[in-house]
């Protein structure tokens, strides 16, 4: 037995090692990334997402089988090591009661693993969820079969090895069942069966070991590292290149991702770690409306490239790159914390640099550069000019503790400016003295950055930062979650910023405002804006406002909170990718399923997108911003 017992592990380990070295060399050639800070938060993240596998239960159909395989596998690691190496002279199973007890536990673990495999197989084969790529189904089945083969051969080996009473395996385990079956068989027969089973286990184990770095199973090795190095702060975008100052970045020959080598090592680790589970694709609104984008296929393509050494041209189309709204639904769901938004932004950066981008996007950029807003409007036409709140525009000398920053959509949008009016009223009624920048229509640059025009964003950021400091404000109030996200995650050195819903929620607690009862009997639902919820974790503030309106009927939606469905976002104003149905139209259908009379949101873009969608659906549902609702219900 010792000849294959030595040679299989040696050959298997050499092949596995060579594959790992090849994967490592691709990682080493990748662009720099900065992921070595905040050790504590990283460990916490690793604990909850990695070891506790918190996201698995979001999809119980495969999540629970995965837990059934993952935890017992961890438990069995020492057992597995001894088992596969015991053909080598000098390696033998430890003795003693503790090890015997542990081995019994491993029998239980193997049984649970097998049940997990069965459940996963049943889910794959009979339920065939669309989030799996049907063409890659055979690989999924093969891997489950190999894992089942491993636990069974292990069980047969264990069961036939010791048959005396002192070594009886626990009943209702795989090994226990095998022992029962072979209880009458002669000793030599049992010994032969055991040896064959062990050999089979050896072949399966080392065969599987070499499949791991060549398939979606590579996540078993890189997944935990990927979680550890995950981006901890949502809503952020990577700099043009890590480790360079903005001045140095300006002098780079080129920026963005054009070829595989432009991906950072974390991007490559993302590709390595994809288990092809399709949760991203299942949540992605671009997929739902039939755009040319599937986050699963995006990463799978990257994985293939990485496995090939990263020398081929990138397979991503412009249509695909401009289909992402950066809503973050994919990242929210990924069990191994793969990041997408950064990659799309970096791919766009290269396109912006080459000047090849959707025509309306380049128009918006040119307008941002010239007028400070993407609409080509004159700065002098910006709200609150022409409204009752024009007196809130800061004068050069006046200092104020609070600044309301409307951003260009509220400043120039026919419907959106009503949100600006409502915010002004609400701030006044909560007794806050505030000002608005004289350049009230200037954009925060949030979209410019996500559309890949980093230096345009930087220009707007610098102008706004200076203007904000000039007012002496201690607090910036925003009503557009994109603005909030820009100030919290894209800018640096600003006074703290808050979304108007946070201000109102606070005022409700401190009894600064109170609401009249709502006797309409109308059912309200809340649409979570992506950049308020997923990117900034503000789910509770808007809900607390709705709940504090006495008598208001407040319903729940199927897709809400961190699973909210993007309305199309600002991108829909500048580029219409090919799609079967507009995102906002699909969202409004989800709203209509609830039989709601009113859909409340907290973002001017969502407000306009959903209003248009409600109109085109011919629905009489009211679409309203939470500030407008709060103002309407405010007790005099």
């Amino acid at each position, binding site marked *: 037995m010792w000849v294959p017992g030595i040679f299989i592990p040696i050959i298997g380990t050499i092949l596995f090692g060579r594959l790992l070295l090849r994967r490592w060399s691709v990682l080493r050639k990748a662009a720099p990334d900065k992921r070595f800070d905040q050790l504590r938060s990283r460990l916490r993240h690793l604990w909850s997402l990695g070891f506790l596998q918190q996201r698995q239960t979001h999809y119980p159909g495969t999540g629970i089988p995965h837990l059934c395989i993952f935890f017992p596998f961890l438990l069995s690691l020492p057992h597995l090591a001894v088992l596969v190496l015991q053909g080598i002279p000098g390696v033998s199973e430890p003795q003693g009661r503790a090890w015997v007890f542990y081995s019994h536990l491993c029998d239980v673990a193997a049984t649970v693993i097998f049940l997990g495999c069965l459940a996963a197989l049943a889910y794959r084969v009979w339920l065939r969820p669309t989030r799996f790529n049907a063409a890659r189904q055979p690989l999924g089945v093969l891997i489950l079969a190999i894992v089942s083969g491993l636990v069974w051969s292990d069980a047969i080996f264990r069961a036939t090895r010791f048959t005396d009473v002192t070594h009886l395996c626990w009943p209702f385990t795989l090994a226990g069942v095998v022992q029962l079956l072979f209880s009458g068989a002669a000793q030599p027969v049992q010994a032969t069966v055991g040896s064959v089973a062990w050999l089979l286990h050896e072949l399966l184990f080392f065969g599987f070991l070499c499949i791991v770095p060549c398939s979606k199973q590579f996540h078993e090795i890189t997944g935990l590292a990927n979680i550890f190095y995950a981006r901890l702060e949502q809503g952020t975008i990577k700099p043009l290149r890590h480790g360079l100052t903005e001045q140095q970045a*300006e*002098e780079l020959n080129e*920026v963005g991702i054009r070829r595989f080598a432009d991906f950072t090592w974390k991007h490559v680790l993302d590709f390595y770690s994809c288990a092809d589970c399709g949760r991203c694709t299942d949540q992605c609104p671009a997929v739902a409306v039939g755009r040319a984008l599937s986050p699963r296929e995006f990463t799978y393509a990257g994985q293939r490239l990485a496995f090939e050494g990263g020398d081929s041209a990138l397979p991503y189309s412009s249509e695909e790159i401009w289909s992402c709204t950066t809503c973050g639904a994919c990242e929210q769901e990924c069990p191994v914390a793969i990041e997408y938004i950064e990659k799309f932004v970096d791919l766009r950066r290269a396109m*912006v*640099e*080459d*000047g*090849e*981008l959707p*025509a309306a*996007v*380049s128009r918006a*950029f*040119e307008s941002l*550069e*010239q*007028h400070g807003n993407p609409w*080509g*409007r*004159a700065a*002098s*036409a910006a709200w609150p000019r022409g409204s009752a709140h024009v007196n809130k525009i800061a004068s050069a000398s006046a200092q104020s503790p609070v600044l309301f920053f409307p951003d260009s959509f509220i400043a120039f949008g026919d419907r959106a400016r009503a949100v600006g009016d409502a915010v002004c009223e609400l701030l006044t009624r909560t007794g806050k003295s505030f000002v608005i920048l004289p350049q009230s229509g200037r954009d925060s640059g949030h979209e410019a950055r996500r559309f890949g*025009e*980093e*230096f*345009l964003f*930087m*220009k707007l950021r610098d102008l706004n930062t200076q203007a904000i400091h000039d007012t002496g404000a201690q607090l910036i109030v925003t009503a557009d979650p994109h603005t909030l996200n820009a100030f919290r995650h894209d800018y640096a050195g600003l006074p703290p910023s808050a979304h108007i819903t946070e201000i109102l929620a606070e005022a409700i607690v401190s009894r600064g405002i109170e609401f009249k009862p709502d006797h309409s009997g109308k059912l309200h639902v809340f649409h979570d804006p992506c950049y308020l919820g997923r990117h900034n974790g503000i789910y509770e503030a808007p809900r607390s406002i709705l709940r504090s309106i006495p008598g208001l009927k407040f319903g729940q939606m199927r897709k809400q909170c961190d699973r909210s469905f993007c309305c199309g976002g600002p991108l829909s104003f500048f580029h219409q990718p090919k799609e079967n149905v507009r995102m906002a139209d699909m969202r409004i259908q989800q709203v209509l399923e609830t039989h709601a009379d009113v859909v409340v949101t907290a973002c001017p873009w969502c407000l306009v997108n959903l209003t248009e969608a409600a109109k085109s659906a011919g629905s009489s549902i009211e679409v309203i911003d939470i500030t407008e609702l709060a103002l309407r219900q405010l007790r005099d």
Partner: protein
Amino acid sequence: MEIVCCIKSVPNIADEEVQIVHQKVSVGTYPRCLNECDRYVLEEALRLTELHGGSITALTFGDTESEDVLRRALALGATEAVMLNGPLEEEPRRVAAALAAVIRRRHFDLVLTGAQSSDRQGAEVGGMLAAMLGVPFASLVVAVERKEYGVLVHREIEGGELEAYEVELPAVLSLQTGINTPRYVSMRGIRKAATKTITAVTPEAVPDVAVRLVEHRHPPTVVGAKMLCGDLKAIAVEVASMIRERGGLQ
């Protein structure tokens, strides 16, 4: 191909009301941008040199603020930029003479201009320039193709029809918008171009002009236009009834 692009910096008025001071539009108060047609000029020059090799010289006549359009041209890939200093509202003939003086001194195959500038909309400089240089001219060009004899150009004529001309080089072409899709110039590109040199030239001879601008003025308010305000539904009903009254709807 050696290509000279004549481009212009124009006021970007957006939706502001045009202010007329002392009977003239005061262009100095508006932000400035590259003239719309000239975006296509630069793109066409890039397209031709990418296909056939050669160089691009960007040329502008204007004040110091006009330099920005040259930076843009350099960011796009122009090999050289020449600035002719003069007032932005200079008479077209003087602009053409100044441009001709610079162009005459260098070797060139093609001079490209925009069909017109968005501020004056005179569409004069291209034609005058060709006459002063003594070379062929084609206006409102919608396609350019390099041939052995020179270039084959397509022109748009009445009714959306096209006519094709064989043009010998050197020549001046004024390009219509839509001839290509101008690429975007990134802010980083423009910033990087800030260090590139721009040759400044002061125009020598200033010819007399036989045409002088007298005044700018707002057109008289049109009588007979009816502004409908208020509730959208009411407006729609009124529009429908007005159309019906005039026989537009049966």
